[in-house]
């Protein structure tokens, strides 16, 4: 579904160039939920943003549905890839219904189709449509914003969803509830999911496989058991140990 083939990405800054990814190769199958983990600055967000072309690779290529990203039309590509950012990224001047229904309206669905779709999506993320549809984002809690963000990303029923630290700003209880709902959602809908998080427990709970990045390079790919029982390098071992101990906040790891 999504293939990173020997991808390199460098950013030019005022002080010179910064390498965000180097020779990054990873295959994510259709319907798979892949977690991208690593300390901050490891390149996991860059990897995610490569998929919907918010950034383009400096070298190598990224494939979606077997074709290089550049052979897809940009807007169509993004319509096939839902995108959820931290805090939900809801437009503050639009109601919940308008946020969720925006893309549907822009691709030409009728008012009736849109409102039906919005209700379905809100029910899917466990928000009562009649209560939440007319609210503005500032009238929602953090967890509710996140749920609306997920509903909005699913608006055009995309085969793939990208999540960038979606649940990291939530308190532990809310996070636990939303994790449960999200898990069920992923299993029901069968979407390909790419989840960036610095929370190891979250990654291990939601993702079937995880990829650990460090300083732009891929350290290890595998399921939770592999990370916990067979860490491939001392860095991975330290990172996993620290991460499991202080779940919820970023693990402090020195390489």
């Amino acid at each position, binding site marked *: 579904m999504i293939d990173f083939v020997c991808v390199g990405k460098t950013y030019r800054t005022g002080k010179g160039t910064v390498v965000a990814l180097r020779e990054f190769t990873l295959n994510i199958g259709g319907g798979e939920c892949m977690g991208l983990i690593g300390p901050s600055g490891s390149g996991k967000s860059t990897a995610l*943003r490569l998929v*919907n072309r*918010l950034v383009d690779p400096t070298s190598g290529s990224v494939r979606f549905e077997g074709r290089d990203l550049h052979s897809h039309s*940009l*807007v*169509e*590509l*993004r*319509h096939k890839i839902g*995108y959820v*950012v*931290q*805090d939900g*990224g809801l*437009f*503050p*001047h*639009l*109601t919940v219904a*308008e946020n969720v*229904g*925006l*893309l549907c*309206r*822009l691709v*030409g*669905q*009728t*008012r009736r189709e849109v409102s039906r779709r919005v209700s379905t999506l809100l029910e899917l993320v466990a928000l009562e449509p009649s209560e939440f549809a007319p609210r*503005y*984002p*500032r009238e929602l809690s953090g967890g509710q914003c996140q749920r609306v963000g997920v509903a*909005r*990303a699913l608006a055009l029923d995309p085969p793939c969803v*990208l999540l960038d630290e979606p649940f990291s700003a939530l308190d532990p209880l809310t996070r636990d509830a939303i994790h449960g709902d999200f898990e069920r959602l992923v299993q029901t809908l069968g979407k390909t999911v790419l989840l960036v998080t610095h929370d190891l427990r979250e990654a291990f709970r939601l993702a079937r496989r995880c990829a650990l990045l460090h300083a732009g390079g891929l350290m290890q790919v595998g399921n939770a058991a592999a990370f916990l029982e067979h860490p491939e390098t001392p860095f991975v071992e330290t990172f996993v140990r620290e991460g499991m101990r202080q779940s919820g906040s970023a693990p402090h790891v020195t390489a």
Partner: protein
Amino acid sequence: MSQRSSLPMRPWVLGLIRAFVILAAIATCLPIAWARTEAPVAKVTIGSKNFTENRLLAEIMAQMIEAHTSIEVERRPNLGGSTIAFTALQSGAIDAYPEYTGTAWSVHLKRQDPLRDPLRGFIEVARAYESRYSLTWLAPFGFSNSYALAMRESSARTRGITRISDLLRHQDTLRAGVSHEFLNRSDGYPGLATTYGLNIADLRGMEHGLAYDALRDGSVDLIDTWTTDGKLLEYDVRLLEDDAHFFPPYDAAPVFRSDTLAKYPEIVAQIERLAFRLDERKMRELNHRVEQGGGSFAETARAFLAEEGLTGGGSPPATLDSQASSGFWPLLWSRRGHTLRLSLQHIYLVLVAVGLATLVAVPAGLLLTRKPVLAGPILGAAGVVQTIPSLALLAFLIPIPGFGLGDRSAIAALFVYAILPIIRNTYAGVHAVEPGLVDAARGMGLSEFQMLRHVELPLALPTIMAGIRTATTVSIGVATLAAFIGAGGLGDPILTGLQLSDIHLVLSGALPAASLALVVDFALSRVEGWVKPQGLA
């Protein structure tokens, strides 16, 4: 518009924007439509500078033409300083105005050598005007309105000052308040200072209409004035003798465009009947009569022509300037119709200028957010334009074909000043949209246009509206200067009131202008609240 694209922006916001665009478009077309309705009749336009005597001479010229020829006369009084009147004449916006030989010599011909002999001065100036500008000097009115320095009689006596050279002994303690033109002209203070070796420590520019009162109440000791100034009859002042003969003669005479005289040769004979009818004493008295409210410009001119036996058949239209003011409120009440008309004129100028500026500056500001490289240079340029003094900008616009005297130049100047606040706020407003939201919108698959229309523009609207509000309030103030180029507005009574030292008349323009600014500012602050997206706290 299809219903699918109207969801994310409140329908009434769009309606408001549409209404505004339509209004601006209509307002833009109006002056063009008006310009087309002028019928081709024999007509000349007589202008004047913005002081009593010049305006009165222009009125006398106008009435002579109206009384003794079949030519219609349009009046363009109060044309800023010498430069605006001269530019207007050169460009054909007016056909004639009264000028002074000394002014022509140093200001327009830029002669550095001193002018001493009045006759030689007149002939040389007339010759140069004819060959260089195709402008014709007709025979002089008969008096010289020369610059002079004046002091309070009492303070001049105490200090023993009778001549300009006596000032040298007191130049460290004297406070001088002189007109801005005098301050800068080579035949004014700079030349005077060189000739006499004068260097007055406390020297500032002030509006001449206020100078006598400042002199009387002691806030200044020395002012510049004219030998024919009507106020000399009223205040206890001493004119200082020009013992070094620095001030050149300023013989007043009508100056016409030569092509106008070729087209209407009958004008020459009629205007030349005015030759040498006025001496300095007579002129001083006429000026005084107008300034004291003894008669309007039209009435005073008519009375003078009658005294001289020059009256013809027709009666010129009554004008509303200079009324005997018995108090501010009665004056304001008696002028209510007039004030309303001027206010509407004022609003019209501001509305068209700000409307056009919005149509240009909002898209331009949006373009800058897409091409940030251009932002620095363009905002910088708009900022520089903002610093051009308004009168200089007007003088610059008058000779441009299609602008000239009147509405269009005034609107163009207001437009120029309105651009910066709107373009800057549009740019800043869009820039202030949270980067995370822009990222989310782009990642969702919104096109650049959809992002602008559904995310950035609605969120920036309050900031853009604040820019329009600033531009409008500033324009209401600047539009009072439109009176300088004959575009009317509430600046008209302010300007006339300053000439006549009639503070009530000044207030009858200034007060409505200030109220207008306050009301409009308040109204637009409400609009700013309305366009604020509902979801924002």
